[in-house]
């Protein structure tokens, strides 16, 4: 049954890819949405059956085939669903279905064949994403891992006639490949170290070890895997591809570059929680990278003018939060944030898509404004999403983000907590900057839009709010953004944190087997949680206090945005002029792209062209080869002169030869 979950969208892909040019848009859309909904249905049944099992043995597996067998290398293609992957398949198929439905309206202006091509890619993406989360070992996960990268490449470059889109797709793929370089080496090391690539078996082997106090094999292994995660999840230093990925259609940004694919790195660490838990050095690096990325992306998001780029940096920043959670050992909190983020970030992207759709391709915030009246559904749903991501109490983002910050603080990482809190302030500010600039105030000038996404000759007299298919997705996601947090209400405020209990087995936080000893259990527990259990009641007050702080921060951030971008717009410009240097650095994203271009891309280009090809290959090697050829040719033409054809000359030379040889022997 598990195989059906990725297989259904894959069949959808095959149908649309093979017959897409011969069927109508309605049929293509129906195939794509139908296969996703069916997959969602099967996933629900699978999760239902999973929940029916007792918590410590919650896992269903299906071996599809024995995949690679060679000598001592034996890997089977096995799918497995446990609480963690159960959550992921629900997110992927559930939110995926909504985005498919949204796309039927959003992409309607494309030609029939392009429409089918779009949906075939989207289905293929879903299939690979499901393989990624269901894979029971590294290699199957890697199939999904690379597959989603491919679909991301294809969808970013969907409008391939536009050079920037094709460039962005290529950049995404290659930067991801740099991450994969680490990931592959990590897998190889894992196999050499443990003799298997199966997650469960590795976890079982690792559980018996002590956490590594020095930087050893486990640290190297996890660090290499984390390099892969930085690629896929756009963390420093491989974050550069995600903002450019906004060249793709907006629903793609919502599904792939916000809700699902980019969270794969976080998922991978969660999947290997026991392994990473035994490599504290790596975890420290993960936490620091995550926090740094969160802060850096948050500051950049503050000054971007393209609505989708703001959201892209926001995604990078939120992913940083998730890595922070992973790094401090708060796996549940990280996955919880992944879960809630999927709702509100998909919502925000789809909302921005509705705006772009209405404005015939306009993406510049400076040319928006006052859309509140004309696009009420979009406005109210977008507003909900913004509240959720800002961390306003009682909405989804509040619970998950707060959990991360609390765990960071409780784990004694004061600096990380401070930076996290600062980022929280930035989040609220840049999100409400978008809200105020786009939906409030007045629209600045009716310039004809330099349309990028929708080259439709739309007259700008009257704007249409989201059509039904888009509105449906927006409303459902808005509801999710409000409610998703309630699966993880912390005990401190009277909740039961059900998501933590549900996910715990996946992180090795309950006994793997009934007969495992208590020692093993103690070794499995993360330091943060251990401490928390001991002093549970004493820390509840602290947790409530921290909640108050972060609520205040969120509201403060919204207040700042309100002051600068609604109340006194001139103040924002004045700030920009006053801190022109800072503003320029931020607007240019800290010049990271430029640095890479100068330090990596150009040197490689020049070295391979001038140095290796025209230098070594053409001049040195071929020079030598042709030189030898020339030498042979030259000497033979010299020798040819002797072949005069004159018999007398030959006779003389024979005579001379005889004399010389005879002379040699005589003289000797």
């Amino acid at each position, binding site marked *: 049954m598990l195989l059906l979950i990725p297989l259904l969208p894959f069949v959808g892909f095959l149908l649309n890819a093979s017959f897409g040019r011969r069927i109508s848009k309605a049929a293509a859309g129906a195939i794509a949405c139908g296969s996703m909904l069916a997959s969602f249905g099967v996933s629900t049944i699978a999760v239902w059956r999973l929940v029916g099992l007792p918590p410590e043995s919650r896992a269903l597996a299906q071996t599809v085939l024995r995949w690679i*067998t*060679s000598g001592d290398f034996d890997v089977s293609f096995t799918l497995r669903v446990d609480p963690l992957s159960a959550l992921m398949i629900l997110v992927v198929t559930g939110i995926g279905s909504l985005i498919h439905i949204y796309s039927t309206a959003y992409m309607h202006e494309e030609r029939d064949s392009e429409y089918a091509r779009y949906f075939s890619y989207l289905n293929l993406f879903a299939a690979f994403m499901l393989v990624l989360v269901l894979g029971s070992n590294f*290699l199957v996960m890697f199939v999904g891992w*690379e597959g989603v990268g491919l679909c991301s490449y294809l969808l970013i*470059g969907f409008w391939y006639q536009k050079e920037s889109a094709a460039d962005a797709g290529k950049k995404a793929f*290659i930067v991801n490949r740099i991450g994969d370089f680490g990931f592959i080496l990590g897998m190889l090391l894992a196999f*050499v170290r443990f003799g298997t690539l199966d997650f469960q078996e590795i976890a*079982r082997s690792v559980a018996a070890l002590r956490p590594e106090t020095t930087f050893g094999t486990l640290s190297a292994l996890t660090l290499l895997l984390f390099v892969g995660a930085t690629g896929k999840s756009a963390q420093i230093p491989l974050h550069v591809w995600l903002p450019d990925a906004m060249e793709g259609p907006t629903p793609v940004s919502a599904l792939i570059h916000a809700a699902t694919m980019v969270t794969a790195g976080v998922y991978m660490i969660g999947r290997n929680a026991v392994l990473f838990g035994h490599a504290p050095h790596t975890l420290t690096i993960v936490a620091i990278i995550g926090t740094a990325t969160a802060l850096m992306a948050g500051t950049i998001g503050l000054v971007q003018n393209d609505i989708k780029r703001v959201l892209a940096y926001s995604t990078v920043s939120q992913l940083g939060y998730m890595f922070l959670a992973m790094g401090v050992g708060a796996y549940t909190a990280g996955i919880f944030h992944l879960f809630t983020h999927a709702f509100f970030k998909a919502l925000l992207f789809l909302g921005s898509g509705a705006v772009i759709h209405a404005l015939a391709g306009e993406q510049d915030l400076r040319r928006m404004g006052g859309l509140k009246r004309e696009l009420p559904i979009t406005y109210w749903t977008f507003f909900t999403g913004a509240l959720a991501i800002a961390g306003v109490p009682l909405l989804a983002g509040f619970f998950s983000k707060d959990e991360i910050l609390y765990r960071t603080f409780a784990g004694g990482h004061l600096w990380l907590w401070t930076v996290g809190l600062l980022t929280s302030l930035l989040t609220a500010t840049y999100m409400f900057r978008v809200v105020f600039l786009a939906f409030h105030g007045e629209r600045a000038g009716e310039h004809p839009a330099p349309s990028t996404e929708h080259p439709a000759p739309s007259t700008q007299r009257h704007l249409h709010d989201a059509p039904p298919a888009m509105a449906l997705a927006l409303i459902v996601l808005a509801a999710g953004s409000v409610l998703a947090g309630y699966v993880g209400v912390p005990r401190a405020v009277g909740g039961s944190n059900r998501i933590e209990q549900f996910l715990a087995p996946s992180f090795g936080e309950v006994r793997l087997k009934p007969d495992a000893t208590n020692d093993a259990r103690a070794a499995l527990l993360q330091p943060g949680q251990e401490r928390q259990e001991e002093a549970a009641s004493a820390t509840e007050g602290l947790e409530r206090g921290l909640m108050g702080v972060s609520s205040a921060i969120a509201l403060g951030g919204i207040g700042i945005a309100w002051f600068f971008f609604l109340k006194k717009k001139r103040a924002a410009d004045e700030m920009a002029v006053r801190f022109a240097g800072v503003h320029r650095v931020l607007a240019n994203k800290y010049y990271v792209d430029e640095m890479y271009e100068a330090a990596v891309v150009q040197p490689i280009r020049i070295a391979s062209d001038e140095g290796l090809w025209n230098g070594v290959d053409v001049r040195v090697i071929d020079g030598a080869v042709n030189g030898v050829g020339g030498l042979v040719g030259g000497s033979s033409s010299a020798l040819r002169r002797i072949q005069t054809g004159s018999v007398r000359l030959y006779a003389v030379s024979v005579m001379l030869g005889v004399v010389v040889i005879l002379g040699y022997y005589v003289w000797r």
Partner: protein
Amino acid sequence: MNHYLSIILFTPLAGALILLLVDKKNENAIRWIANIVAFVGFAISVPLWFRYNLSNADFQFVERAHWIPSVGAWYFLGVDGFSTLLILLTTMMGSIAVLSSWTAITERVKEYYIFLLVLQTGMLGAFMSLDFLLFFLFWEVMLVPMYFLIGIWGSDNRLYSAIKFFLYTLVGSVVMLLGILALYFAYHADPANGGVYTFDITRFHQYAFASNLQWWVFLAFFLGFAIKVPMFPFHTWLPDAHTDAPTAGSVILAAVLLKMGTYGFLRFSLPILPDASRAFVPMVALLSIIGIVYGALVALAQKDWKRLVAYSSVSHMGLVMLGMFALNPVGITGSIVQQLNHGISTGALFLIVGIVYERRHTREISEYGGLSKVMPVYAAIFLIMTLSSIGLPALNGFIGEFLILQGVFVYSYVWAAFAASGVVLGAAYMLYLYQRTMFGKIENPKNEGLLDLNHREFATFAPLLILAVWMGLYPAPFLSRLETSVQHVVARVSPQYAAKNAADCATTPAAVAASTNPAAKFLEALPCGPDGKPLPSTGSGRGPGGSSGTGADIPAPAGSGPPPARPGDAR
């Protein structure tokens, strides 16, 4: 069917003889005959796949007849799993190459197809020969038709390229012949062999030649084979030959001829000269790694579509060589799989260039752009083959690449890291190529009217697409065919593996000489099956890795259970 291999071998030659009798003006008849012969040649080789006995470790379908009794040379054919797969690749690529030439070749049609078919017999013979002199004969036979294919039907710079190809290969093979003769006389000189003069490879496989002789002969073979592979720095004939060869010539060259070099290493150098092979591992590995990175970087700089694919071959074949010289089962298996993959994907990539070359008569990448719009089916096939070439999982390239990396990693994680950098660079140059040709707007008006693939052209790709997906998703039938061949080589060149297996499974005391091969220290006990044969490990307690920092030992995973029998055991 005692003469099965001979039938496969001489079918193309018979076709060439038939073509001799056809009037050269009757071009369509010639095309039909050549296509039918090539296809029949493929069809009759297919039973080789099914009739090959997986559990038999010896050479199969053996044929033996006197050839030159006075020097002890025999007409001696036979195949193992490795050559079986290469033979199938040859017959398949041969018929694809013939089919792809239908409209591309319009001059001297008769000679063209005759050369193509003779070439086919030469390649098949080289893969089948178990007599060294016979092998050398076929090895040289291949050279001549290829020389004419490039020199007559090639493009602008064809004469230079053809002569370069010919001389490069000839230099290598002359030196190789000296090596063969050295073995021949050394074998005779040992009184233990009863004064026999023989070129019999199976005997050489069981004889331990003196170390210093091995050393010299390895170098002689190395020159011959490394030129053919081609390894850095002997590769510069390849870009020229590929670029100027007609499409079918490039396809055959990439898919099959380059495999002659790797086949030579695996069939001759490693098992006949095991001591020297071990001694030369660092040199070969270094050249391979240079080849991987260098080929990829130079490919990145190319402006000529075909030349780019040619340099990608240098990079890929470097990986093949590196996997082979890891000298362990996983690496060698990966190396062979990657040889097949390279044949499939690079063969397809040359076909792909050929399609547009035939329409536009240029290979300049800058002449193209935006072709996705006018040739969507073509673009889709190109994409799949690009992905296969850069080793995307679920396609064939990944399986070979990963097995090679795994094998190399066991040997040295530094090498593996260098080799894996090819993963990044490969994606870079292929996607850069794809973007420049397929994406963007059509800016060159000449490209606006390009036609998508016709049925014949599609037919040349169909088998390659099927294989790419099949080998990616279910490589087990291929891997199981390679098992005994790989074991045979490993038993010679890394005897610790075989000794270890024997020690674990029989009661003979272990005589493991772990000193010579660094890979030995990674060896662990392999579990035995009920039949006493070593089973593929389930990975219980594999030894510490390249860098084991923790002192703690890993206990065997509790639930690993009895390993499932390998596919070969069932038969």
